[in-house]
């Protein structure tokens, strides 16, 4: 096998290297900077140059080499290259070729262009290891232009009623993607410290993001009326919120597609947006790889692999420690991104 599934994670024997391992290993290839994929404790790391600043920011002083999209590297008996996954800035799928057989590890991905990350590129392969976070046909995302309109309308209405709009977003990726959709003419954009830290890292690597003001104990919130406040989901409903005064709350997440989740989170608004592929995205991405065999990792693995098997793929499930089921998947992405 080109890749094997071990206790420590996905392993390439020909290169003696792991991909996104969850136990400490000597050498790790990292698809992207979310905490369930880039973990501390490995001997050496290899990631794209676009992912590297966030990984360094989160994991501190590690041995990290970088690689560009499409650049090929020989490691042992394997040819390794990284390709855009469209998930968050710098995120990659990892292509591994051994003796002419090609496997691709998707990491997390989405097929729509978010205007921020390098868009997803299908990579032809024999075996594709795909996430299936949203691998059920109930998941379908709001088009980006509609989403931008919904967000800005909500912001404008909330500002007009003399309140701040507080949006729960994941600190890495989602927050910056939303930043790009916001219309700054509505008012100031404020950030929670966790969001600001990650945003600063991405800004420093050259991404064009609108101006934000981090909320500190000194921030004069009274003078900043009608603001959009971006905070990690866990901050909503916490004591941190109290100082903001009257607010309207919202969450931006793929789970907001479900009315039950929207209601349980008890926010005023839910915006259906995810950095993972929706049902059509997963299916079209898999079809575009031309793969005969597909392994699915996190999410609705049982249902999605059965579906793929019925579509004629050789499908299997790989137990990983990426994300988790339901809300935990995206929740876990905040933890590491919060310094």
């Amino acid at each position, binding site marked *: 096998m080109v890749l094997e599934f071990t206790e420590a994670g996905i392993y390439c024997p020909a290169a003696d290297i792991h991909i996104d391992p969850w136990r400490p290993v000597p050498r790790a290839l990292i698809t992207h900077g979310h905490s369930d994929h880039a973990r501390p404790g490995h001997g050496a790391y290899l990631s794209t140059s676009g992912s590297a600043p966030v990984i360094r920011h989160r994991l501190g002083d590690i041995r990290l080499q970088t690689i560009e999209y499409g650049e090929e590297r020989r490691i042992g008996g394997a040819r390794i290259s990284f390709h855009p996954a469209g998930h968050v800035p710098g995120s990659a799928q990892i292509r591994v070729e051994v003796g002419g057989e090609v496997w691709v590890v998707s990491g997390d991905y989405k097929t729509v262009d978010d205007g921020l990350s390098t868009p997803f590129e299908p990579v032809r392969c024999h075996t594709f290891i795909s996430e299936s976070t949203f691998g*059920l*046909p*109930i*998941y*379908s995302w709001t088009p980006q232009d509609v989403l931008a309109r919904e967000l800005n309308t909500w912001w404008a209405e909330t500002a007009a009623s003399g309140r701040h709009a507080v949006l729960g977003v994941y600190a890495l990726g989602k927050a910056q993607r939303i930043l790009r959709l916001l219309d700054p003419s509505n008012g100031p954009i404020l950030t929670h410290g966790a969001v600001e830290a990650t945003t600063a890292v991405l800004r420093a690597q050259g991404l064009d993001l609108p101006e934000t003001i981090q909320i500190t104990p000194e921030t004069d919130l009274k003078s900043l009326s009608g603001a959009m406040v971006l905070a990690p989901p866990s901050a909503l409903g916490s004591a941190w919120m109290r100082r903001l005064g009257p607010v309207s709350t919202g969450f931006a997440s793929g*789970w907001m*597609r*479900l*009315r*039950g*989740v*929207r*209601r*349980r989170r*008890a926010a*005023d*608004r839910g915006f259906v947006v995810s950095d993972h592929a929706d049902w059509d995205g997963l299916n079209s991405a898999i079809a575009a790889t031309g793969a005969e065999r597909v392994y699915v990792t996190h999410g*609705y693995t049982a*249902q999605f692999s*059965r*579906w793929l098997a*019925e579509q004629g793929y050789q499908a299997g499930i790989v137990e990983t420690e990426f994300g*988790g*089921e*339901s*809300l*935990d998947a995206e929740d876990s992405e905040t933890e590491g991104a919060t310094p």
Partner: protein
Amino acid sequence: MKRFAALFAALDQTTSTKAKTAALAAYFADAPEADRLWCIALLSGRRPRRMITTTKLREWAAERAGIPLWLFEACYPVVGDLSETIALVLPEPTRETDLPLATWIARLRALDKAEEETRKSAILDAWDSLAPTERFVFNKLLTGGWRMGVSQKLMTRALAQATGIDEAELTHRLMGDWTPDTATWASLIEVPDPTADLSRPYPFYLAYQIDAEPETLGPVTDWLAERKWDGIRGQLILRGGEHWLWSRGEELITDRFPELAQLRDFLPPGTVMDGEVLAWDSAAATPLSFAQLQPRIGRKTVPKKLLTEAPVILMAYDLLEWGGTDWRARPLSERRAQLEAALADLPDDLPLRVSPRVAARDWPGLAKARAQSRDLGAEGLMLKRRAAPYLAGRKKGDWWKWKVDPLTINAVMIYAQAGSGRRATLYTDFTFAVWDGNQLVPFTKAYSGLTDAEFNEITRWVRKNTTDRFGPVRAVRPEHVFEIAFEGIQKSTRHKSGVALRFPRMARWRRDKPLAEANTLDDLKAMLARYG
């Protein structure tokens, strides 16, 4: 439908009662009249009959979505709601229409007699022409499972805001046997004819559970105490030589209790009483258990055998109308005295009694009387202020439930299942077991009583400690002990443990209790012997 779907979205998007009321009031002010009437009907539980089986809807939705049925079925427990699952799996609509709500309902009802092929094409066509929220609302109409997160009370308040008519008056107007076919906006809301509907009940006055020491209610002499009976709350109406019995859920249940018909011969028309329908043991002059009343609730016609096995009486405790006059504004003491006088000379074998007053000189005396409740087949005491009028709906202050403390047992959680709707992503439905030797025997389910934080915590724990799966049900490692509170216990042949509990819920997560100290099957059997 767009206007109605927008109303739905507005109600769904906010948790603020004020915002909901405003959205509804705006709808009542400007929606077409027929739509307004249907909106009131839907929000007061008057749904159109279900025309199409959910099995068919599932098949058609899967077919239109281009997915196998098993995959549709796999989506359903994730979403927790059939109407929403259908709305989510369907492809984007290809056309746009905007027909009024009433027109859609009329179209649906016209399908009642249609062939299956006609029904199918009509439904697929509708799905194809409705935007996602409209589709969801439409599916709710189809499946009859209508809940909009709006109580009838809130709807009535909005209607009062929109029309300027007094809220209590509107509550009364909206009660009774009307449907959008028999009523118009004018006849129902604006100028109702009081004689048009003799069956129309008064809104029930509902009590709160007392949340402080009863001494805080002031002098005991201000209060009238009665037993809190464990039957079905009912309002008996005698008007124009006929009679009607309404349940608290505003359901007409006259035919289920034919023995009450004879009361027409003994009480004058223009009499309305509030009370409790109880299965009654006339020899012992005590109620039979709720379990014995239960078979009579579900059926529209009652076989003879059941009539003799579980005869019912109305245990009356209030008089709302007398001599055709509305007595609700008069003080309880006066209503009660008239009720007792009216019933005083009736034959003993009539299925009607006055709920006896429970007398005591002071609060400790009442507390003593309360403690005997379970042995008398009652759930505790009701405390009612003698000077109070009969109000509409749930209002704090004049009527209090003073229930006996629930029974409790410590049990081990062994199975978990995700909730539905709002709680579809949480494990909230648990099965509990007690020890029988070194075996754990399941005896009840419970799904309420924990805080959101506790449900979140237990959900994470369930995910990590699943030992087996049976469809949506997960077997979990026996580790956690919960105190289960319940109101009663009955013998049951349907349950392996041999008992069934009434209103079981999780009173406390007993983190302090080791597994071995959970209660036993023998403990349960002892409770059954004492209270069953």
